[in-house]
């Protein structure tokens, strides 16, 4: 009688050894990827844009089960940030925080995205949780994620022009009545 339930296929061999032995995810050896240690003590990686997907996949194999956060930053008006040598600073930067539940460790992967073609590989096929985060990064910064199943706006209305969190997008302040209200117009 009820609708025939589509056969629920067990989603793949779980990379996750959730129970049992505690996997100590030694960071996978990645030859030419610049490393640094962030202010919060987490390891920070700066792969090149084309090696970004490969680095994230290596970490997933090494036991980083969850993608905690994925966001983007627009460094247009930034005076100058400290980058390990050999990493060319570009305007946009995508920062992905990978979390290892069994090893209790976090790693941050920061990849530079140039302004002229803001395209970077999507990690949705590795972590299903990246879908909404990448849509938000696309909506707010206009960074296109290749391989994303449905890259549409998520927060702004559909017919909104421009990407609000870019530094050259005005705050959109409505000038208030009293003359000297602080903040740009």
């Amino acid at each position: 009688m009820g609708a025939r339930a589509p056969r629920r296929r067990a989603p793949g061999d779980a990379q996750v050894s959730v129970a049992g032995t505690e996997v100590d995810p030694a960071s996978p050896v990645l030859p030419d990827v610049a490393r640094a240690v962030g202010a919060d003590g987490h390891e920070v990686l700066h792969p090149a844009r084309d090696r970004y997907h490969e680095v994230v996949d290596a970490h997933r194999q090494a036991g980083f089960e969850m993608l905690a956060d994925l966001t983007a930053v627009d460094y247009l008006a930034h005076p100058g940030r400290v980058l390990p040598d050999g990493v060319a600073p570009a305007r946009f930067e995508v920062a992905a925080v990978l979390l290892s539940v069994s090893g209790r460790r976090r790693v941050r992967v920061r990849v530079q995205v140039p302004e002229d073609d803001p395209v970077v590989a999507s990690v949705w096929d590795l972590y299903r949780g990246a879908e909404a985060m990448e849509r938000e990064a696309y909506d707010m910064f206009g960074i296109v994620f290749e391989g994303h199943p449905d890259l549409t706006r998520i927060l702004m209305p559909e017919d909104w022009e421009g990407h609000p969190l870019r530094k050259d997008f005005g705050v959109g302040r409505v000038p208030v009545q009293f003359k000297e209200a602080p903040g740009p117009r």
Partner: protein
Amino acid sequence: MVEPQAGMDQYLPILILFILGILFAGLSFVASSLLAPRKRPTAAKLAPYECGIIPDREPPQRFPVRFYLVAMIFIIFDIEIVFLYPWAVVFRHLGAFGLVEVLVFAGAVFVSFLYLVSNGALNWGPAKRLRLARPQRTTESTIARVGPEQGPGTGRAA
């Protein structure tokens, strides 16, 4: 035993009831057109309410058959009630025979209801339902408390 009134006037109460019904229905129409504020219904008020979204696709014509099954079950019991009314009027005369007779009638209708339910007419159960082995779960039985000694990721509850 109440002496039944002679001739036609035993139907008088039914006539009065009929007239009152019509009066009430007519009056409510007239009153609402008089008292209600004079407002032309705007397009928004005519549009179906869909949580604030203006529907751009027209509502589906075909509804799943389950909704009609519920209607059919209602009709079965509705007819049963209709037959109970005349019985109720004269059940004092019928005495024990009337009681048995209506019980048999109700039993027959109930059998049809049992057939419907056994056929799954009321079974709208979700396709995906995790049938659990343990019937009586309490807020203590279903969880495990991981103390500081066990590391994370290993606290697989029983």
